[in-house]
């Protein structure tokens, strides 16, 4: 029932907003629909806390510890982003950047994107997972080019082509997976159901599955933004409207990684080796290092944080690759922390860029002076994402680095260098934006900074205290992922 609501509300919202999306109160309607989704997901979560994992509707949907927190997180970030998007879009409209038609498109697609994310998370069917991932690309690609500037078109086109091609590889991987599963489970509906696959994973043909994993990894990995498949990511993040950057970074990357990890579980079961883990570690480390060095070349604030997302996806992928209860736990925690923190940063960045009228960092100055809340939000958010305790990002980095130091000591010099370079790059830039003098005017609509600080407060809280049921989910999921 909850699942119907979780999926139905955003779908309904998408349809409603496709009609009313251009109205003055459309941003508020968007918030209401997102709130509904969030309430439904909270209800679902409450039930999972009470009853444990469930499957529903002929096993087409299932909720286990691995995806329950992602569902909540997705619904939550979707809600806060909608909250942020409301004044942001009012400001954009006030600046004359968007027409009513574009706003309609934006709001409708926003809800549909939420729908695809939640569908990808809740479905039990690896095929539907693929469909949802592809649909996520389709819903957001028009949003990236919302401003219709040459750069935004270019970014959207790259996003479309690269992710399209990538996701096609994932389809091939899914076919191979089905091919292997069909031998064991027989043809038909159940052979792509993850719960069934998970039961018989040890009997799946190893050669096929290793090939399938390569395709799935390249496919979904493109969406995760793993180097060297990441090239669409900074463009799409930088050129789209900021709420979209926030959800791309905060949600889409997570969900794509979720798909990779689901596949990894099956492959590990079939192969019984560390093959998938090694691949993930390699990609993770490469993304981490490359992104860190890209960071220092950035001039555009949103591009900067887009690369930071690649860096963090690298860390998470590396952690999943290492495996083991601690590292996987840390990876799951880091997914949560990253999406909360990064979306908070994008909220602050969005307002900062609106205020300065540019995304070029050299023209953004003295935020703390005129809008202390934006300035502090950006400063604290950046420090949090850079792994400064007591923020929660550090908690997961703590576990990842200490585990890596013990189990894969060869990788730690790379991590050390990458973290150092990333810190230098991001912090030097943020500092000049936050501090100093400025004469910038205030915004016509007061910025929505509640989402920023709610996110940061959550991140801070999780750095100091992790609720027991959340820890339980992480633990169970880690045990399942291995």
């Amino acid at each position: 029932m909850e699942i119907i609501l979780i999926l139905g509300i955003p779908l309904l919202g998408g349809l409603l907003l496709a009609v009313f999306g251009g109205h003055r109160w459309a941003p508020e309607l968007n918030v209401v629909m997102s709130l509904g989704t969030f309430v439904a997901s909270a209800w679902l979560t409450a039930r999972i806390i009470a009853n444990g994992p469930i499957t529903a509707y002929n096993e087409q949907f299932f909720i286990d510890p691995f995806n329950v927190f992602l569902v909540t997180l997705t619904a939550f970030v979707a809600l806060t982003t909608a909250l942020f998007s409301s004044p942001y879009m009012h400001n954009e409209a006030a600046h004359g950047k968007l027409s009513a038609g574009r706003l309609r498109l934006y709001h409708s697609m926003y809800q549909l994107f939420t729908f695809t994310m939640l569908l990808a998370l809740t479905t039990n069917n690896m095929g539907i997972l693929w469909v949802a991932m592809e649909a996520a690309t389709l819903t957001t690609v028009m949003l990236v080019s919302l401003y219709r500037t040459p750069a935004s078109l270019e970014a959207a086109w790259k996003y479309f082509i690269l992710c399209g091609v990538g996701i096609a590889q994932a389809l091939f991987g899914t076919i191979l997976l089905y091919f292997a599963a069909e031998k064991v489970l027989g043809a038909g509906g159940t052979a792509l159901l993850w719960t069934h696959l998970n039961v018989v994973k040890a009997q799946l043909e190893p050669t096929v599955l290793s090939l399938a994993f390569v395709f799935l990894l390249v496919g979904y990995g493109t969406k995760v933004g793993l180097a060297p498949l990441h090239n669409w990511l900074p463009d799409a993040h930088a050129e789209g409207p900021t709420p979209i950057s926030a959800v791309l970074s905060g949600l889409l990357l997570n969900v794509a990684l979720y798909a990779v990890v689901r596949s990894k579980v099956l492959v590990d079961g079939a192969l019984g080796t560390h093959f998938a883990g090694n691949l993930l570690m390699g990609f993770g480390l490469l993304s981490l290092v490359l992104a860190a060095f890209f960071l220092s070349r950035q001039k555009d604030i949103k591009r900067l944080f887009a690369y930071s997302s690649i860096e963090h996806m690298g860390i998470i992928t590396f952690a999943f690759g290492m495996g083991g209860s601690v590292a996987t736990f840390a990876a799951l925690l880091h997914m949560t922390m990253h999406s909360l923190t990064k979306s908070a940063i994008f909220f602050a960045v969005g307002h900062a860029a609106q205020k300065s009228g540019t995304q070029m960092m050299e023209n953004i100055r003295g935020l703390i002076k005129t809008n202390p809340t934006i300035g502090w939000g950006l400063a604290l958010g950046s420090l949090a994402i850079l792994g400064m305790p007591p923020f929660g990002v550090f908690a997961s980095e703590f576990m990842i680095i200490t585990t890596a130091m013990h189990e894969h000591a060869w990788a730690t010099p790379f991590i050390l260098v990458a973290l150092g370079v990333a810190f230098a790059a991001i912090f030097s830039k943020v500092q000049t934006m936050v501090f100093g003098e400025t004469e910038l005017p205030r915004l016509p609509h007061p910025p929505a900074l509640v989402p920023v600080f709610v996110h940061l407060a959550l991140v801070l809280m999780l750095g100091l205290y992790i609720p027991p049921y959340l820890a339980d989910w992480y633990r169970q999921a880690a045990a399942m992922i291995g």
Partner: protein
Amino acid sequence: MTTPNLPIDIALGVIIYWLLLAVAGLLLQNSRAISQWIFPAGAAGALVLAVSALSSLGGAINVAVLPLGLPDLPFHLRLDSLSAFFLLLLGAASIGISLYSAGYFRHMEGGSLGLLCFEYHIFLAAMALVFLADDAYLFMVAWESMALSSYFLVTTDHNIPETRRAGFLYLLIAHVGAVAILMSFGVMQGGHGDYTFSTMRNAHLTEFWASVTFLLALFGFGAKAGILPLHVWLPEAHPAAPSPVSAMMSGIMLKTAIYGILRVSFDLLGMPLWWWGVLALSLGLATALYGVLFAAVQTDMKRLLAYSSIENIGIILVGIGLGLVFHALNKDALAALALTATLYHALNHSFMKGLLFLGTGSVLHATGERDMGKLGGLIHSMPKLALLVLVGALALAGLPPLNGFMSEWLLLQAFLLSPDLPLPYLNMLVPIAAAALVLAAALAGYVMVKFYGVIFLGQPRMEKTAKAHDIGAWELLGMGWLALGCLLLGLFPVFVIFNLDHVTLMLVGKTLGSTAAQTGWLLLTPIQPERASYSPLVLLVIIVIGVLFTLFVVKKFYHGRLRRGPAWDCGFPAQTARMQDTAEGFGQPIRQIFEQVLGVIREVPSPYDKKPHYHGETRDLFWDLIYLPIAWVAERISALIGKLQQGRIPIYLLYSFVTLIALLAFVR
């Protein structure tokens, strides 16, 4: 002591109290109440902490677990003698600094005083937590909170670009260091996945991994302490920060790094290897000499003190290195001596350097000038301040009977009593190390004479210097406390050493106190009375008696006639304040002797210049040797990597394609 857990409860209580004060500061924004009530209240908390820490030295080990932190790793806290000593240091020094702040920060009312008060108390609480932490996670959280809060304190005046640059450099080096510390914890947990210190104590590491841990920890903590070549942030950040913050950073925060090194190398790692000690010793000597040389040529008074802090950290590290060598070679009595000297010096340094930084704060506040070359003659306009700073300067110069001399004396004793180590090369090292150490100590005297003489003595070089107002009551109270500490720590070493015994007993299993006091509390005898003894109190009393006696005799037998007149100066007619030595002039001999080391850049005007302009500058060689090359390499790499992203879709597709094919080929 009523309940066994009382001391740690008190310490935790003080931490929470400070956190509450921090929040209160934030809520009160910029009202008067902050300087009138909150800072003194913070000092009261510090007093409670110091007293409880003092009483718990040598008491039972207290542990506590807070239901916070990671799910499998709640916050573990532990109060043992090492923690108690450093808490004592924190409490005792911050009493003075907080009292002083109550007066000093009054000029910030209407600015961002509330925020500053918030950061200040968070900083205090974080440092206290560092000393109490008993698991890697809490330690790191406290450690980085400390770095973060101090970063914001350093950048209080963020509209000055140098301040921003200093803050950035500080936080960057701190962060890289923190990652290194984290990695050393990663090795130490030994794959148990349990990050409590008690697990680390019991983990058995191979020599290789133990050494890796030690090196990582030395790097990480060294970055915070300012050990060569990671010292570059220190002379930037300390001058940039408001003076009480500089005092706190230099006096207390640097000691957290010392605490970390001690904790890791003596407590967590168990048995050290002797070459760790040699490494620490060599690094310490290099740091001490480098720091004091640069201090001698500075013109900015706070930079000078910052470099002097580098020197003192070097000296402390020398003590740690010596302790490690002795401990590794099973000479624990000697190790106890070296460690006593180390801890003693750490305590002394926090008093002396705190006092001096506060002094510069008052000078800065009264004159608005940090360049020593523009000050001068303040002893006339600010006599109270001048007296207090004189105590600090003499102490820092390592002159008896003050406290700086006391700890250096102990350290030299440790050197001199060290022969007959089983390794011949090590025996050779001892005289050289001792020579370098005394050279550094002697140069410190040079530095302090320059510091005090140029700022306080002579004629005022500026109008406003002559009219500067002396310090107020809060400042007097705060600095007076620290000056008193300098004096008492110097005069009653036996009592101090008795308290330090608990720490050395915990670290190396031996104590010094009972031997030190074998001939009574008046005379300090580290090993035997025949071998070495020292009594600062007797020394002071004799000198005072000597002075009084001479004065009495002179007054008694001769007339006391005195005339005032203009200075004679060999009969030179025109005397202006500009003819005195500036800071640059005073440092000139050092600059000339050590020209190669100091990286001197000098612009000398030509004889025909109408408006001759002289400019001299000393550059930190490590910028050119290490930091700029690293920055250059990083930039080159990122330029190269930047070429990967050409913006062309076919190329991007090719990346995906090649990745796919390569992986497929790999799977085959």
